[in-house]
């Protein structure tokens, strides 16, 4: 078990360094950050001096080594645009993204599983057909479009929900939460649906197909033969057995929801990390981009690591393999 964990850790470190390197190579192509930092009247000398001060003229190897050295100490430098340390900006922006991701995940789980179960059991009912059609839309419509559509219906036409932003927030320590105010909760609804819709349809379809499979198995037939109630069979036996793969997928999807909240955050001007990243890309704000990419890579590595450890506990075959290694 320990050997397995250590090997996984090494792999994780390797992934992180690779991501850092890839990100760094990409930064060579995002353009000139200096032009985004100065006004048009800034003299050529001042521009060149700034390039030098930022170390943009150093050989790429030197720049990369410096970046890795600092990143190992969680120092990603100062944002070119916001003039604040990247770590501080991420700490400030992360709560917004995490709250949105949590709301989106809850929305997708709390709706996705029941709908999946229902459509699994009542395969041919008209309601199931409606659910499946809607879920097909959810999978195929781009997030951007769904967000704009929701804004036009609920904010512009009906005027019941805010069109953008996070509403009033309450500060608890460094964490600014929107969960505690009415405007904060109202502002959360549309972005959470936009972000969670794809995941919800995914969970629905997964639960449905797992249910269909489980309901065909022998032990369900035996349970029926013994005269157990439908309720006990469907929820006590069938659903329980479908959940193992579903939980794995949900875990991985949570990482995806955080990483890909970029579009949703842009559409709703949600002040989270995704929006911060998009702004950084446009202004070639390299320190912010680097910090964000590494953070996302770290999240994925961490989630994968945890999932792997859970597997080891659940699946004896991996345990034996791990011991042998």
């Amino acid at each position, binding site marked *: 078990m320990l050997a397995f964990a250590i090997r996984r850790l090494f792999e994780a470190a390797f992934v992180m360094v690779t991501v850092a390197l890839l990100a760094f190579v990409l930064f060579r*192509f*995002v*353009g*000139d*950050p*200096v*032009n*985004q*930092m*100065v*006004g*048009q*009247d*800034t*003299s*050529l000398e*001042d*521009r060149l001096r*700034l*390039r030098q*001060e*930022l170390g943009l003229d150093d050989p790429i190897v030197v720049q990369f080594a410096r970046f890795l050295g600092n990143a190992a100490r969680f120092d990603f*430098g*100062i944002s*070119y*645009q*916001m*003039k*604040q*340390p990247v770590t*501080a900006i991420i700490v400030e922006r992360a709560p917004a993204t995490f709250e949105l991701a949590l709301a989106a995940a809850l929305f997708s789980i709390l709706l996705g599983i029941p709908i999946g179960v229902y459509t699994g059991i009542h395969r041919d009912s008209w309601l199931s057909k409606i659910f499946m059609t809607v879920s097909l839309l959810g999978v195929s419509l781009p997030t951007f479009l769904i967000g*704009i559509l929701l*804004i*036009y219906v609920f*904010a*512009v036409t009906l*005027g019941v929900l*805010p*069109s*953008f*932003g996070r509403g009033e927030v309450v500060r608890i320590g460094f964490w600014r939460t929107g969960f505690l105010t009415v405007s904060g909760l109202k502002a959360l609804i549309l972005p959470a649906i936009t972000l969670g819709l794809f995941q919800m349809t995914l969970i629905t379809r997964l639960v449905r197909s797992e249910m269909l499979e489980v309901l065909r198995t022998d032990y369900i037939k035996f349970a029926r033969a013994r005269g157990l109630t439908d309720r006990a069979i469907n929820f006590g036996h069938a659903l329980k057995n479908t959940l193992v793969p579903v939980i794995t997928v949900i875990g991985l999807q949570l990482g995806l929801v955080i990483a890909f909240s970029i579009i949703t955050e*842009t*559409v*709703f*001007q949600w*002040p989270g990390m995704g*929006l*911060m990243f*998009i*702004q950084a890309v*446009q*202004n*070639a704000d390299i320190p912010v981009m680097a910090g964000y990419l590494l953070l996302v890579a770290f999240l994925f590595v961490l989630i994968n690591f945890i999932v792997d450890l859970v597997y080891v506990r659940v699946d004896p075959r991996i345990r034996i393999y791990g011991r042998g290694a």
Partner: protein
Amino acid sequence: MKLKTLVVTSALAFVLASAPAAAKTFRYAFQGDLNALDPYTLNESFTLGALGNVMEGLTKRDKDLKIIPGLAERWEIVDPLKWRFYLRKGVKFHNGEDFTADDVVFSTERMRSPASQIKSRAPADMKAVKVDDHTVDFVLTSPNPILNAEWDTWYMFSKKWSEANGATQAQAASATSLNPFALKANGTGPFMIASHEPGVKTVFKPNPNWWGKPEHNLTEVVFQTIKSDATRVAALLSGDIDMMDPAPVQDIERVKASPNATVLIGPEIRTIFLNLDSFRDELLYSNVKGKNPFKDARVRKAIYQAIDIEAIHNKVMRGMSVNSALMISPLLYSRAAEFKRHPYDVAAAKKLLTEAGYPQGFEVEMDCPNDRYVNDEGICQAVAQMLSRIDIKVKLNSMPKAKYFEKAGPTKKYDSSFNLLGWTPGSLDSWNVIANIIGCRDADGKGATFNYGGYCNPKLTELNKQILVEVDTKKRDELIAEAFRINHEEAGVIPLHQQSLIWGVSKKVQMVQRADNQILFYWVKMQ
């Protein structure tokens, strides 16, 4: 009983007292962020505009961009090398300190601190000399007729406060530690910063002790960034915000059709133009080898005349532009009316090109930003199309601005043969255009750095020097006309148009749209 009466009366008194000052919150949104609050660290019109509500310069500009007194009541030119400014008395900073001549002298030093982005506000060898507490002399080494042209956005800092807050210098863009000042502001203006979250939200409150007479009726102003065009429009239509900039061209009709909002459209002072590399002896990105066709004025003029500017105005800009014969907005140059565009004439263009020795045309690559100016990429596509009619085959490279300015600009030594650029002269004066855009430069960019094509006529360098020091307005305008005429005749840099400002505004709001695109809410009235 008595107590009850007292309570009722005081409650009534409270209601009466607060009734006239009913809360009027003006909410506005812009596509970009308001980051650092030090106006010396970013020379950009949105930031300077937002902070222009909080801080003030010695001069101001009125609704038509005319220079008017600001923190200086008046000024006089004692002799061509000495300008005397008389400061307004009784002006206080937001923290209660008096504004005096010491603050002006200090702000002059601060404006020149190494990381300052507004060094161009005054000549580097200008001296600020305190005469008394409310008089300052500015001593020059050569005459400068437009000395105070940009002083409306050279905001005055409090010396004491800056020293107490470690803000005596503009924060270096490359600083490795955070200047706490970057998130604070202490000015003399009609509004104060109540709270500031960079990239998210900034709240302004009126300054009750402002020296002037307020022309607004606001009790609070909230600024928020909304990046996405569609969301900004939706926020305006739903009433979540009262004003937004810019309104996307394609949404103008929708905003107009809505019951609670409309658009404000006006000319902007930014000019959009085309640069042709006439600097190199051989074009970098072309099939013409051994020579450079753009060095020939006939080829440049052929390109000029092959551009159907009306089509760009109608189709690409949907009417939201003013075609321009000049490299500066007609609002900013008194003799602009004397200049007319070379007519759109494909036959004449083809003839010029044949005379120059390119009857078969040639191929060239064009670089174009796609997120900097209104429909920038569309304009380039249209130009490429139009040039194909005179057999100049243009291969278009569109790219984000960060990439574009790196490639086409001095960073990569003007690695471009043909490109599109826009320019607003910071001083709102023609000299700025001659010095930065149509004057000569060397391969590294010394000289007219923003002359991305490197067009050069030595006569312009000479005129540039004369215009800089000529104090007689009439003579000066004549020299400027001569410079513009040379560029016009030789088609050195090819002007296209001034784009329009398009703001979305709630019908509850009355406001001034100034052509420099500064959003000044000290002129906002709300119903």
